[in-house]
């Protein structure tokens, strides 16, 4: 019995030294951390950040969204609020009002309601993706900007329509 006890202790002390060796080996190995302010994480393309509006193919200024309110209804924490302008009667004054909007195809049936404002309250968003998935016209997509910081809650209430306009403007330059 005593021999076993001694044997245990000797093995134990040996394991202590082995532990030291492991930390020593790691001491010499290069670092693996990313120094955040100076370097940022390279692989972010799959990340599901807050949503943004998808511009129409032919006219980057106008969103694809048809203001059908599905995303606002589907959102678990109801953080999407959007308002749409009442569609003008198509039949009579379609010609002259569509003069200045290029590319408005005069369709016989009622014109789609025009999106006026699309506000996302990112404070309550739980990034579940219900809005993007249930959108009938795929007018929403995820951004992958992780590094968001702000001083007040209001800074996280994004006006996605304005954001679309800026992106379109930047693309022009």
């Amino acid at each position, binding site marked *: 019995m005593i021999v076993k006890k001694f044997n245990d202790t000797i093995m134990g002390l040996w394991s202590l030294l082995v*532990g030291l060796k492991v930390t020593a080996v790691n001491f010499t190995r290069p670092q*693996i951390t990313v120094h955040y302010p100076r370097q940022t994480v390279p692989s972010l393309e799959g990340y599901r950040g807050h949503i943004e509006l998808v511009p129409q193919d032919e006219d980057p200024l106008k969103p694809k969204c048809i203001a059908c309110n599905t995303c606002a209804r589907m959102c678990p924490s109801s953080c999407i609020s959007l308002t749409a302008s009442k569609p003008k009667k198509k039949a009579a004054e379609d010609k002259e009002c569509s003069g200045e909007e290029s590319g408005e195809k005069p369709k016989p049936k009622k014109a789609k309601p025009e999106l006026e404002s699309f506000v996302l309250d990112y404070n309550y968003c739980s990034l579940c993706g219900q809005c993007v998935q249930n959108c009938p016209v795929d007018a929403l997509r995820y951004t992958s900007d992780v590094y968001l910081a702000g001083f007040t809650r209001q800074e996280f209430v994004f006006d996605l329509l304005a954001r679309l306009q800026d992106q379109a403007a930047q693309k022009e330059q």
Partner: protein
Amino acid sequence: MIEAIPIPLIVISVGLAATLAFIGLNALVLVYLERKVAGFIQRRPGPYEVGPQGILQPVADGLKLVGKQIFTPTGADRVLYWLAPMISIAPALVCFLAIPFGPHLQIINTNVGLILILAFTGINVLALCIAGWASQNKYALLGAARDISQSVAYEIPLLLSILPIIFMTGTFNLFDIASGQGAWPWQWYIVYQPLAFVIFFICALAETNRNPFDLPEAESELTAGFHTEYSGMGFGMFFLAEYAYMVVASCVTAILFLGGFQGPVASGWWWFLAKVYILLLIMIWIRWTYPRVRFDQLLNICWKWLIPLAVFNLLVTLLVIAI
């Protein structure tokens, strides 16, 4: 007028000022060293933000601690609460007086240097006990209780492991012990007394509450042990005291077992500092590797393993000397 002031008083006052500077500087270097080594072991860079490569990080910590508001927790015994950090740091100063840094660099060359150091390191226990009791916090009380039994238990093997050296050299004078050993490593006492060295080092770790034995300030069990209620300079003093005692422990180890300022080429204070810092690095290295020992195991190690080994080692040395 100058003769009116006795020479030793001047020497001691200059020595004390030098010791204060040495402790302060050492604390800064050690804090930086510990965080860098911890970082590298955990494969992260450690502090690099403040100053080039994070050199000024300890200074920043010091300023933060000084800047904190000083407050006494409700119901705490105000006098004792603020006395504890002072009692904790004061003995550390005195210990440095007797340490021979170099052939000429010694403040007091007393022949009871070793006893002086051992006596004053004992006072630290009192400080931690007062701190634990005065901050009126259940966790602090538990931390203090643990610290008392730990320090008292590890005092005995500490002394027992020093005795063989005393018998071999026959003096308590640190200067003679240091100069008694030869310049070359195989002439140092570690070769004659390897077991005593290991026991002494373990006891030094236990006395200064370093990792495998850091039960009095066990973060995960007692939230912070005896200095739970301290913040700002109160905590700063305990922090400084812990590093000071670490330096004292490694200085004494260097003198007793590694030949003090004796070095192969030109013996001097730089050899002494090199040995001290190697020992400190080992202490830091151990801290970032091992989990914490449980309380009753801590006492078992001391009573069942260290003390019998130390006594056995003492007897063997006496036999060898007697023949």
